[in-house]
């Protein structure tokens, strides 16, 4: 008997084995979009220089807790400053989550006898309706809508019949009517061909305001502090500025600040729509703090028993070490001299 069989609620956990063994590639796909630390879907994925990705919070937590400076997967050197948000992976995860639910449902239906019939149905349309017609009709509409949406407002000024000329200076294709203006402005105007203007304008409309906003927010990253050089008062001020509790002794304050920096910075690695609110992060921090203090009560009990049991042994060892200390320094010096001689 194990928890797995005992608690039906726990079986609700999703993992790659939800897919049937025949669908090996689906299992692989499902495993690929999971963090290898928490084995959940990537939450704010970040990549290291070696190319391995983890949830931002997972890898930050690992680096902070174990003070390891290498990739957990391949042990390549890695630093917290190397972490780069992997927005593609994040998009894949958010698309995969609903998709997998759908596929799992289909796969379960597939196990039932209806399987054969549906397969037949699927193979029907190509033979009767002809596959070429539907896609081509689709593609033209798609092209049309794309074109109209691609064209920015001022691009409509140019009719398709407008003749384009190559600018003698920058070789860009410019509408005849605008060539003078183009040359006067030192080829700086984006009035090249309507085509390139389109893409440029579109890029700036996509990238411009959004990336600006992101940059502005990422400026708010909480930096790591040299905690030893800060006084308790300064630390409290920092915490207060972040809107956090300022109670507790130095070590509590430091731990709180470190944890907050981790939560906060990890949150910034997510795209804007996936970010948690500041209030939610504060709740997470409070929960972490209360859980952190809970298990402390048990630990000393174990330690004191151990200390008591071996107290005489420890005493003896301490005595022995004290006696040995003086001559040890001497031998060390000798060793140093030796190595210098070499």
């Amino acid at each position: 008997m194990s928890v797995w069989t005992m608690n039906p609620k726990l079986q609700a956990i999703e993992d790659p084995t939800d897919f049937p063994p025949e669908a090996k590639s689906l299992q692989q796909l499902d495993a690929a979009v999971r963090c290898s630390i928490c084995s959940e879907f990537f939450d704010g994925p970040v990549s290291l220089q070696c190319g391995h990705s983890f949830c931002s919070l997972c890898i930050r937590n690992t680096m902070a807790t174990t003070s390891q400076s290498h990739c957990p997967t391949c042990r390549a050197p890695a630093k917290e400053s190397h972490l780069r948000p992997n927005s593609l992976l994040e998009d894949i995860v958010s698309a995969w989550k609903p998709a997998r639910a759908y596929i799992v449902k289909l796969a379960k239906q597939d196990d039932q006898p209806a399987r054969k019939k549906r397969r037949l149905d699927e193979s029907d349309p190509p033979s009767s309706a002809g596959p070429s017609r539907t896609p081509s009709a689709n593609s033209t509409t798609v092209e049309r809508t794309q074109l109209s949406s691609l064209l920015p407002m001022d691009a409509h000024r140019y009719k398709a019949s407008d003749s384009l000329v190559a600018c003698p200076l920058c070789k860009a294709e410019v509408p005849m009517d605008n060539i003078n203006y183009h040359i006067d402005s030192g080829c700086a105007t984006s009035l090249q061909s309507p085509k390139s203007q389109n893409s440029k304008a579109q890029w700036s409309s996509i990238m411009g305001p959004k990336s600006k906003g992101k940059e502005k927010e990422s400026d708010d990253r909480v930096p790591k502090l040299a905690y030893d050089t800060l006084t308790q008062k300064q630390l409290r001020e920092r915490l207060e500025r972040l809107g956090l509790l300022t109670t507790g002794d130095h070590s509590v304050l430091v731990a709180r600040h470190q944890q907050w920096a981790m939560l906060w910075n990890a949150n910034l690695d997510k795209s804007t729509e996936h970010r948690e609110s500041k209030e939610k992060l504060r709740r997470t921090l409070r929960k972490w703090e209360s859980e952190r203090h809970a298990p402390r009560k048990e630990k000393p009990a174990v330690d004191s028993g151990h200390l008591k049991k071996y107290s005489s042994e420890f005493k003896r060892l301490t005595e022995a070490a004290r006696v040995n200390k003086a001559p040890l320094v001497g031998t060390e010096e000798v060793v140093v001299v030796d190595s210098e001689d070499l």
Partner: protein
Amino acid sequence: MASISSRRLQKELTEIHMEGCPVGITLVKADDFETWWFTIEVMGESVYRSEVYTLQFRFEPNYPISAPAVTFVVTDGRKAPLHPHVYSNGHICASILGNEWSPVLSVVSVCITLQSMLASCKKKEPPVDNDRYVRTAPDNPKKTRFVYHDDTV
């Protein structure tokens, strides 16, 4: 936080149930998300041929970020293998359980590593400092600071 470790362990357990353990490794009990028991046996030609040992995993709330405490069970007639890196109290001196632990490792991967550690051993002998260590060893091997010096076995 308990939920991170229990969710991750839940997934590992599901995988063990769905896909089974590698040859020579069997899940004995996993009644909670704190202590699991496995038996391991070295397959093929080995000095430990047809000997079955029991491994105990103890998990902390922040597993897998912190390593599990892994020991051989030495109670109820069970014994630790005689191996230069395994103390007679069941403690194991292996770098992946200490400073080389990585959160991407799993319970099964630890079992495999220990299985191959036994398989590559040519001569059954206790660690050189066995008696001294066992006398003062803490209950939890994670409190011991091992020095990893020997890569041969």
